[in-house]
């Protein structure tokens, strides 16, 4: 490399850094700042009326998975916490899977329309984002509650004799989350399918592939980046979901998000809340690493 080129490269590197400086500063304070506060708080002692006392204590971390017997001081697994974790993971995975199953045909349909129809459909997909999440969730509540739209309709049609109990169950949370996160799956899938060369379908079909094989061997591997992006965009917020389980799951069907909120509210145990938040972050990060690695590996050996 000549001197001039070298200098040009260095100037470019410098201006790139300078240009991204505002974003980097913002990220540093807005993202890592709160994170560090959380990490510090998780090692402190809870104050009597919330807040923290600046005294080191590992109790919050122990308390995330173990519970201490108030009488004899022995530790046992905190079943209630584990149930909440498990429910959160289960519901989030199920939501991710289901948004994919519904979102894929939808995205395919949109991507194969003419330019005008496509723009209209994409616009329709984004309409829910215009309304507050709370209002949308309450609307779902209105539909599926015992005296809601769905039950009234089914009862009056004589399909059922007594109302279906959906509200305040895991099913209700699942329905709500699928509805809320579906666009986040459809949009990246659409972007990937839009780039897919439809001529490959004919090539595969010409080479004796059945419809299922075309999907499995050609379409899915090629649109995989969209599938990965969509899954991440759905799974992460679903795992931390707060509003939906609160309104549709009632008090008993908590997810991690509600449980964390509880610690900062009525529970008055900020360190435990902080420890749970950090734990959630770690779970998500590890899960993502495994997922992305597994997804890219299966790509390289066909």
């Amino acid at each position, binding site marked *: 490399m000549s001197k001039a080129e070298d200098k040009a490269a260095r100037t470019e590197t410098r201006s790139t850094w300078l240009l991204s400086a505002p974003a980097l500063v913002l990220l540093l304070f807005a993202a890592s700042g709160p994170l560090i506060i959380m990490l510090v708080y998780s090692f402190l002692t809870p104050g009597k009326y919330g807040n923290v006392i600046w005294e080191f204590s590992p109790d919050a971390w122990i308390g995330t998975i173990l519970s201490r017997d108030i009488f004899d001081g022995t530790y046992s697994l905190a079943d209630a916490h584990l149930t909440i974790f498990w429910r959160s993971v289960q519901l989030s995975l199920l939501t991710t899977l289901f948004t994919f199953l519904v979102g894929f045909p939808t995205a395919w349909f949109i991507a194969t329309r003419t330019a005008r129809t496509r723009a209209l459909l994409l616009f329709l997909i984004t309409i829910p984002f215009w309304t507050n999440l709370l209002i949308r969730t309450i609307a779902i509540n209105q539909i599926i509650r015992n005296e809601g739209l769905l039950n009234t309709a089914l009862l009056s049609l004589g399909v059922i004799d007594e109302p279906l109990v959906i509200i305040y169950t895991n099913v209700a949370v699942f329905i709500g989350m699928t509805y809320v996160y579906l666009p986040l799956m459809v949009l990246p899938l659409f972007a990937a399918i839009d780039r897919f060369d439809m001529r490959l379908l004919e*090539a595969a079909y010409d080479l004796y592939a059945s419809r299922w094989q075309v999907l499995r061997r050609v379409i899915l591997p*090629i649109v995989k980046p969209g599938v990965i992006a969509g899954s991440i965009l759905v799974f992460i917020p679903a795992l931390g979901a707060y509003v939906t389980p609160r309104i549709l799951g009632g008090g008993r069907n908590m997810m991690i998000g509600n449980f964390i909120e509880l610690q900062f509210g009525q529970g008055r145990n900020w360190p435990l809340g902080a420890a749970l938040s950090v734990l959630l972050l770690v779970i998500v990060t590890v899960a993502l690493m495994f997922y992305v690695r597994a997804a890219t590996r299966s790509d390289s050996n066909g």
Partner: protein
Amino acid sequence: MVYAIEARSTRKVYGSGSFAVTALDNVSIAIRKGEFFTLLGPSGCGKTTLLRMIAGFETPTSGQILLNGQDISTQPPNQRPINTVFQSYALFPHLSVRENVGFGLKMKGRPDAQIAGTVERVLSLVKLEAMADRKPQQLSGGQQQRVALARALAPEPEVLLLDEPLSALDLKLRKEMQVELKRLQLELGITFIFVTHDQEEALTMSDRIGVMSAGHLLQVGPPREIYNRPVNRFVADFIGETNFIPATIAGGVATVAGGARLAVATDAPTGDHTIAVRPEHVRIGAEGDGALPATVGESVYFGTDSHVHLTLADGTAIVARQQSDATGAGVLAEGSRVGVSFADGSVQVLED
């Protein structure tokens, strides 16, 4: 005789109502087993449409497509023992060259060991063994082309369809691939149906050529016949260069303006017609002695030969192709008067 592929009064209309486009109009064609058959015609004449119907991507609006004498008009592509080399190659970007080539066999459910063996053999056939583990994006255009060919050959189809497979290649590579394709076809004995709008490509490679225009099949025959005995003005004009001269034909003699009389086939249609003569069959000599009087115009030098532009007595412009000599002594001066004659049997009477 059972043909490899037959089209019987095949019509294809795209769209309907006022948007209807007749891409193929009553095309009947019979292609023999092991033949290198070329469909030749200008852009939009329906070559791809015919090929896609043979492959199974389109169903005929009416008429039939037969494979080995059996009607396959409604069979889907994945059930036809016919493979296509696509103009855009359409290689699978997520698969290596080896996996691309093995794709068809894998979909047919062949055991892995057999697939590996066949893929190896086909890759060596197209001289791509060294690239087997690359992805298509890491190959040059010519190499991708050969992968597409190998991929279509690996499942050992009965008929191979090639839609302008060489059009994206530069001239030198195209010539190489032409030779290679022809060699492969002779070696494998597979029926090739090749689409091109390059007449030279068609003439050098084909056993037979079908010339198409605007959804019609105009003439089918071996290259020599197509070139020397074109049935009409379109074919004569599309294949090679041709001089068209108005003439009156009677009893195997064509009389052209100026009174010169030329021998033509005795079964040629009589009346006022156009006769066609290739530039290389035009002889330039001295005036008189039954030759057509002409005036020499511009001469264009092409290396191995020159094109001499001439004007006949009635104003008809014709071109003669003359072999170049080393000294340039034979160059005719512009404006000089000469006599033109045509090589024996070179004058064709066109019906329209």
